[in-house]
């Protein structure tokens, strides 16, 4: 099993774990946070996965002094662009032309690699030049350079090498042409005019509609019916436009299914006002239940001719085909996937509406104009195993924690802000879950010096690291907060309760001691029986259950100069009063896998 790198996750205070009492305003994290304090957070609960974020994903609102996670920011779109051609798409096109690139950017339906347009080598025949339509037809294909899929496999070739999207919309798989909905409408209009002249009925009444056309036909049918039924009543047919929108006709049609209470005379009187669609021009499509062709295809071509579910879900919505039902499973029904457009988004704090992240509008740049990442406001935690000198196994850091044997870890808190912060940690003494491990934070309360004076450190460069650390520790001890680790004798010191292990300019290391639980299921059952527990879950070990995760409530307090708007601003200006700030959140510290004996 892969060794686990220790990790830290932070729960955004906006998440409310309680299923019953959802706070009225989810965007006021302060209230939710207050609730959390009384509950032990279980990082293994399935819901926790939705609220835990690595520090890098979190933002910070300077005005509300709160962490903002992707769930609790308001987003605004800066740019729409195609990730393939980096072409910026105007927002009006999104509405009208959909969410995919309408140029020539396609993904391979087999391997989602980018498709490129290639021309098939065809002999330039001078005879054909006379008829350019003929000459050019079928000279270009889409080809995947990774898996060598090409659009000839679905029988599609293109006459021009640009505007593939528009061309593809007019070709069915196999090369048969297709009319778009608009063309259908025009065609029908023409036919109606012709048939009026000729006095004959429409010839193509029972055709196989594709989804888009059926939808369009249904839409025009319903709107026609609504207009008819509403205008017929009171001779307001001149106000035809009002017809659809007026509640008069609306309620007449659709309200009928609002429930049994409408089952009265009134609704009955309305029943007749709208009929159902009768032919394919009105959107009625009889189902073609005969799938024997597809079945025999399946049987002759076998597993290889079908596509995986992943490939199926990647497929764009099938507008251009009739209902495929089971036939979507064949590779011959695949369509090249136009690239989904992407967006650049700026993010605002939902409470104070201040922008907390704003990317550069230009597609090609990856810079941000504003980005308030949480990592520069709240302490980062790094974890490494502590090799205690003279301990059991100092030589090789074990891949897995040994059950029931104490192990010590060093948590290093690094303070990014320019004030001294006071950190208070709280962990449950036993981790939640089926296999409770014992956790002891040796020094749950400490102060981290401010992130000031980079020069200070630079100037003191002549000191060795050890000296500096010791000196800092001594200073701190003398400073009288009682948390400092005074007995610095280099590597020789022992972890001691109430004392920090090491400290530096803006960081502090503390020791956490854990006694990993045994993962043996028989022990679990016996202990549960001793405790009289009922309904213990003696199922096999689940995914990640062997990872020792510590829920840790972190509370950070610091003081800023009064009136200073920005937390990160340099202190030193003598203002009258200081303001106390605090931030509290749950975090999850993953220490490592517990070995299975």
């Amino acid at each position, binding site marked *: 099993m892969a060794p686990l790198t220790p990790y830290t996750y932070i729960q955004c205070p906006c998440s409310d774990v309680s299923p019953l009492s959802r706070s009225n305003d989810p965007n006021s994290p302060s209230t939710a946070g207050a609730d959390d304090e009384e509950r032990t957070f279980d990082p293994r609960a399935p819901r926790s996965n939705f609220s835990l974020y690595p520090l890098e994903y979190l933002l910070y609102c300077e005005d509300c002094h709160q962490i903002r996670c992707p769930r609790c920011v308001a987003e605004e779109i800066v740019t729409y662009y195609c990730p393939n051609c980096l072409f910026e798409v105007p927002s009006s096109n999104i509405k009208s032309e959909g*969410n995919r690139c309408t140029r020539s950017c396609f993904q391979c339906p087999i391997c989602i690699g980018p498709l490129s347009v290639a021309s098939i080598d065809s002999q330039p025949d001078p005879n054909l030049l006379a008829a350019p339509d003929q000459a050019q037809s079928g000279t270009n294909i889409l080809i995947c350079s990774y898996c060598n899929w090409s659009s000839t496999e679905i029988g599609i070739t293109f006459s021009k090498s640009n505007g593939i999207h528009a061309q593809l919309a007019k070709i069915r798989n196999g090369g048969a042409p297709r009319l778009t909905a608009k063309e259908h409408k025009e065609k029908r209009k023409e036919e109606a005019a012709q048939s009026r002249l000729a006095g004959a009925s429409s010839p193509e009444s029972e055709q196989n509609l594709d989804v888009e056309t059926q939808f369009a036909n249904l839409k025009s049918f319903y709107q026609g019916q609504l207009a008819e039924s509403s205008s017929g009543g009171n001779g307001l047919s001149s106000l035809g436009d009002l017809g659809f929108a007026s509640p008069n006709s609306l309620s007449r049609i659709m*309200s009928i299914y609002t429930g049994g209470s409408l089952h009265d005379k009134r609704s009955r009187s309305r029943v007749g006002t709208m009929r159902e669609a009768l032919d394919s021009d009105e959107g009625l499509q009889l189902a073609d239940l005969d799938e024997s062709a597809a079945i025999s295809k399946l049987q002759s071509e076998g597993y290889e001719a079908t596509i995986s579910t992943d490939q199926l879900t990647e497929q764009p919505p099938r507008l251009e085909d009739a209902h495929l039902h089971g036939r979507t499973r064949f590779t011959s029904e695949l369509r090249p996937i136009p690239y989904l457009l992407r967006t650049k988004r700026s993010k605002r704090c939902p409470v104070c509406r201040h922008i907390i992240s704003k990317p550069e509008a230009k597609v090609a740049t990856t810079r941000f104009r504003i980005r308030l990442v949480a990592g520069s406001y709240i302490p980062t935690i790094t974890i490494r195993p502590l090799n205690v000198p003279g301990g059991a196994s100092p030589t090789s850091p074990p891949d897995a924690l040994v059950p029931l044997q104490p192990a010590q870890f060093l948590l290093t808190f690094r303070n990014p802000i320019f004030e001294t912060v006071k950190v208070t940690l709280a962990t449950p003494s036993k981790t939640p879950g089926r296999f409770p491990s014992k956790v002891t934070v040796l020094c749950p309360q400490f102060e981290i010096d401010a992130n000031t004076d980079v020069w200070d450190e630079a100037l003191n460069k002549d000191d060795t690291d050890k000296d500096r650390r010791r000196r800092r520790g001594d200073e701190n001890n003398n400073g009288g907060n009682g948390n400092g680790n005074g007995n610095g004798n280099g590597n020789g010191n022992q972890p001691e309760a109430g004392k920090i292990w090491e400290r530096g300019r803006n960081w502090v290391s503390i020791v956490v001691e854990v006694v990993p639980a045994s993962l043996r299921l028989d022990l679990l059952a016996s202990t549960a029986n001793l405790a009289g527990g009922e309904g213990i879950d003696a199922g096999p070990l689940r995914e990640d259950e062997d990872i020792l995760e510590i829920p840790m409530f972190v509370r950070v307090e610091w003081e800023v100069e009064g009136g200073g708007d920005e937390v990160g601003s340099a202190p030193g200006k003598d203002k009258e009063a200081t303001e106390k700030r605090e931030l509290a959140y749950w975090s999850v510290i993953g220490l490592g896998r517990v070995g299975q004996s």
Partner: protein
Amino acid sequence: MATSTGSTLPHRAVANIKSPTGGGSGSPSTPPRGILSSFGSPSSLRAEEDLILIDFGSRKLQVGFAGDAVPRGSIWFGPDQQRRVGDFRIWQADYKNDWKKRASGRQWGRDYELWRPDVRELDLGLVADKVERAVRDAYTQYMLIDSRPRRMVCVLPSGLPLPLLSATLDALFSRFLPPTISLLSSPVAVAVGAGVRSALVVDLGWAETVVTSIYEYREVHTCRTVRAGRMLTEETHKLLASHLGQSQQNPDSDPEYILSFEECNEIASRLVWCKPSQRSSQIKPEDGLATVEEQDESETKSQQTPGENAKTTVPLRSYSPRTSLDLSYEELAKPCENTFFDSQYHMSSFDDHELPVHLLIYRSLRQLPLDVRAICMSRIIFTGGGANVLGLRRRIFDEVSHLIEQRGWDSVQGKAVDALQANPLLKKRATRQASNGPTGVESRPSVGEEHDGVWYDAVPNLPEVDPVEEQLKRGRDKTPQVQGVMRAVETVGAWSGASLITQVKAPAIATIDRDIWQQQGVAGASKPSDVDPKNQRQSLGAGGLIRGAAGASWTLGIWGAS
């Protein structure tokens, strides 16, 4: 129009409430309409506003803008969706191999579902989280919209349990802050998407197959069975496991899953097909016994074309060690056979929750009132993921036709019925064709066969003028409706149907205001019968005008009726 009094009467009634001065007059063609349009179509005020339409399925979410033909995208639920952000283990090389830790035993495949109809062990908060993440993913990935509040329309199965509905609405209201959420029932949307007013919607879904009869856009009857997608996947697993067991020399039936859900689901969707009904190729069976199904398998085997003996090689990656199986198509049709038909058992041996689909449809039709049945049976709509099984729709259709042919609409079964069916006269009636009459009057002769003589003579001679019937006749289009014959109709789907409904700006079953929801929650909903529909519609229609009205009762429609 001749029915002007009839059709303006309700308007006046609505107008009375809104402006008592306007509606009192007797003239039908004056002011009320104007008042109505200014008051009652707030939708035009917001016409340019996007309306977000979400279709909730058991396994996927379809999201798009109302008015589009197809959803912008669909989000499938899966275990990877439930990972922590920043957890990239799915890219690890051996990720797929240790599936057993993730989902074994009863959890097999559960991560791929948004919810189950059985909410007893369900973490509703988790459902809310899943909904939220899925909608958020859809917003960023497919919709490409910012997070400004937008009105939402949710298409929900009509049998959705209230706790699930409540959790869903909670998630949507609290995270996406829509001013209102409207609810539409998916069977009705499916019917609208087919262009019909009445239909028998057969939703071959994931957890359940639901047969809903829609009559005039109203759900009149619903019945369900567990024979659906999940069962198909489990049957596929059973089939594969039995084959693997043989090769392993390990015949004891292990209830544990030996293949991953992903793989079984994939094979079910790739290779499983449905054998055509043998009756469609046979001459019409004369025996008419319900137990005829017992001969099914042997007969089909004998009828096979040589091509059906073909085999295909199925690679199995989640099995350790990796292997592949040669399966004949005969075998691959079995899961479908067992799931949806189970024809080796007698029809009376099924519990109510596990009726075979064709029997369910037949019973559902039989329980409908006569007129409704005649209309619905000619508008059968197959929808849902199960409809993707090749040949299944045809098979169900044929089986139901056969049942109807065999039994008529007589709910009495047994030897006496067999004797009756031997009577050639009655048999002929049972296979009657559509009656030509546009109204229910003419279809009456087909009431329960025994009474034919009586009814047939009695009804047409009735001189009584029923005002309701008159109105019906006048209002209805003169084109004869297809009825009384089995017919399947294609639909554009629930999402697109709902898109049509919202496109024509019809009011939804229920529209819930965010403020009211957050004040009152699900407990505040009244039963639909308690809410005055006129009031309700008014408050819906007038939107912002009446939104603040305190004490206005609101409803969750069919979902709230508990």
